[in-house]
């Protein structure tokens, strides 16, 4: 019987010491360089945001405009899981170039401490991991009121990395 031979098998000398040494070895430090980003498309441009700032991504519903809101950053309010959340026009804030109408639009709910704010994006391209060290600088013309700190990717896949804190600050300022 297998069990007989397996369970009655004598332990060779030094086996215990061998395994103890193995487990005593210090672990490799976890790669602190890697960040998970949600990559999405607004118009013709691709952006990315730290995944821990995105609470959820759902199918967009009705967005109701508010009185006296005009055509600013505030798009209106929408229902997210029974709570009514503010919906902003991220493409207006980022001045994104208009693009093709393909892809499935989604509602992205962003979080900053206790604040939640939603924005419609043209397409979600997934959650991807990048190394911080792979962040490349943007061209010299990219100065002034900008929210991207660098870019990732190669070839056709150009993804700008947004500065989440500045983004939220700007939204707060422009909404009041």
């Amino acid at each position: 019987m297998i069990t007989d031979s397996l369970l009655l098998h004598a332990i060779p000398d030094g086996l215990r010491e061998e395994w103890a040494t193995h487990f005593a070895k210090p672990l490799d430090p976890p790669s602190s360089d890697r960040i998970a980003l949600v990559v999405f498309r607004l118009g013709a441009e691709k952006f990315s945001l730290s995944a821990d700032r995105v609470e959820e991504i759902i199918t967009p519903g009705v967005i109701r405009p508010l009185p006296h809101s005009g055509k600013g950053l505030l798009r209106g309010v929408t229902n997210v899981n029974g709570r009514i959340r503010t919906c902003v026009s991220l493409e207006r804030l980022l001045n994104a170039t208009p693009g093709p109408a393909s892809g499935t639009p989604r509602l992205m709910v962003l979080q900053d401490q206790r604040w939640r704010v939603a924005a419609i994006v043209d397409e979600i391209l997934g959650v991807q991991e990048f190394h911080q060290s792979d962040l490349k600088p943007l061209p010299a013309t990219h100065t002034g009121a900008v929210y991207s700190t660098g870019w990732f990717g190669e070839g056709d896949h150009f993804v700008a990395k947004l500065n989440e804190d500045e983004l939220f600050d700007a939204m707060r300022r422009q909404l009041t």
Partner: protein
Amino acid sequence: MTPGSSSSGDLSGFSMTELFRIDADNQLTTLSEGLLALGSGVDASSVLEELMRAAHSIKGAARIVNVDAAVGIAHVMEDVFVSAQKNPGARFPQSRIDLMLKGTDLLRSVIFDTEPKPTAAEIAEFVRKCGLPADAEESSAPAPTPKPEPAKQELAAQEPQAAEASRSETQTRSVRIGSDNLDRLVSLAGENRITLNRANRFNKEAEEIATVQRSLLISLRGFAETFAGSPQAAEHLEDIRRKIAAAEDLAEQLRLGLDEYSFQISQLGNRLYTEALSCRMRPFADCVLSLKRLVRDLSRSLGKPCRLEVRGENTEVDRDILERLESTLTHLIRNALDHGIEPSHIRDAVGKDPQATITISAAHVSGRLVIRLSDDGRGIDPEYIRKEIVARGLISRVAASTLTFAEVMEFLFLPGFSMSNKVTEISGRGVGLDAVRSTAKALRGTIRVHSTLGAGTTFELSTPISQALARCLLVDIAGTPCALPLARIEGVANIPEEETHYTEGRQHCDWNGQRIGLINAAQVLEFEENQPLTSPLSVVIMSEAGKQFGVVVANFLGEEELLLQPLDSELGKIRDLAATSLMADGSPVLVLDDEDFLLSIRTLAGEGRLRVSKTDKHEDSDVAKHVLVVDDSLTVRELERKLLTERGYEVTTAVDGMDGLSTLREGKFDMVITDVDMPRMDGIELVEKIRANPHFRDLPVMIVSYKDRQEDRERGLEAGADYYLAKSSFHSDELARMVEQFIGPAYQS
């Protein structure tokens, strides 16, 4: 997850300090309650045990988290309780209770780090006092004693039973839940209910399937009767019939099953929602403890013995208003003790119980929360107020004499109106009942006062039971659903447009014998009206201070009780908007702020900027825009005429420049379209002559010509034409489009 964020709601997210504070809070509440109970003569032994254990717990916990000051205070308090337990015969004097209550205050300040922070000297003094024997304390304090002892003891005997009973009632277990969690729970329950209630539509679809199956069978039978075919055909037909019958049975089963299931789940959804909402409710007892303490402290410092009776401690109160309720009642109690209640010797002299009573009651009455606070003091003298009002110049003596009792009482709620002549520490600064009234208003409620001279005064606060729910009228304003709270709505009406009249450009109509002004709701909210209104006009009549306004909306959508959600705080206060909510289909609805709304209306009316509400019948000018077409070719003239009249424009033609000029002078035209090559006067000269005439300097002129060279264009534009359209690149659309660009559509809307 950061400590203390407790997004999961369990205690593991809290730091040790936070846990200690939660625990200490409970123990301090036990201490306060126990001490107050002791003060009203309850059997001391059981209470002392509780008190001792509470102090002991705090001491132990404070040691673990190294809050040394708390350890010291709790320790001496524990000693006091232990030594009192060792002398079961001795009374626990009032002054000792005062001292222990001060101890709980010190502990609270130290543990919760609140201002003013107790100094080491203060704490040392407290410890010293605790060390003194009880008798020494008693003789040094100037405690006023009420005169007729027997009466007091009788009352004291009745007190403990009531106290015991109420304490056991309110001892249901309670748990802590973060307010974020609770909000999420309520939202999800609301969303769930909406979604489950929509399951009904599947019932209808199942029913439709069954109906289709039945009609299939009927058709098949008809077919079988008329069709005489082979035996195999008959067999096939029978087979088909059987299968359809089986499908019909299945469909019917599905329908029945769905019916029952959707009923159950929508029941569950509704009940879950109601339960979640009721989590927002707290027993009234939650705000009573501090009031008991207040009455005790105040009555001792003022030397006016007074006790507090509370009824309806278990009445449910929306947790959102507990704080404001407590502060309102605090205010009223201070007033009562300061002004309302007479010193005990005066009370005795008029035959009243020297110990005064303040009664607070909370109850649900006809769907409202009614809180009453009464004292058995001297009452309010309406004549005194009447004189005061006149003295302060608020109203003439003649008018004052016609005021009813209720109207006189209203003056008490004016800002700065205070009944006392001197500013006492307690009250009398005149920061008074107006604060109470504005709190009542903020809670969407009312406050009233009744009084009998010599017998006492009662204040009655009435609010909706739930602050979160509001009955609203749903309306469509320019395509956006909005909700108007019912409170200020007098009525709704469908008013045919023909029955509206205008005075100085302002629209009004008749309603119930009143003439009311009409306001377009979309204008107030600055919503673009994408659809024209239809007759009859849907009008909501709102009133404020006796004035009525007719608010014109696109449509009525019904009446609903909505669960209000406050606006995102980051947006600040948005004018005209009070809150948001969700409709039965899950989409957001805007809940309007009726005060703001009425203010906006008055502002617009005052500035004379009110837009009228009209349906899409052509109004001011049933006259279309008039275009003059000048061309020597008949074909071109008629083609251009056709293109423009199709768009509704009125067209007159002329055969050359001269004809065009004279026609222009005789008629009234909005635009001229002219060719270049014409006999007698060509287009260029025509344009020049038109521009030379000051009357036509701004008249839009367009040249339409076969000549398309650069120099031709330049010539035309230099002459004064506004546009040069080449006939070769001339698409039928473009002519009309350019005309519309210059003078707008045929009929000005």
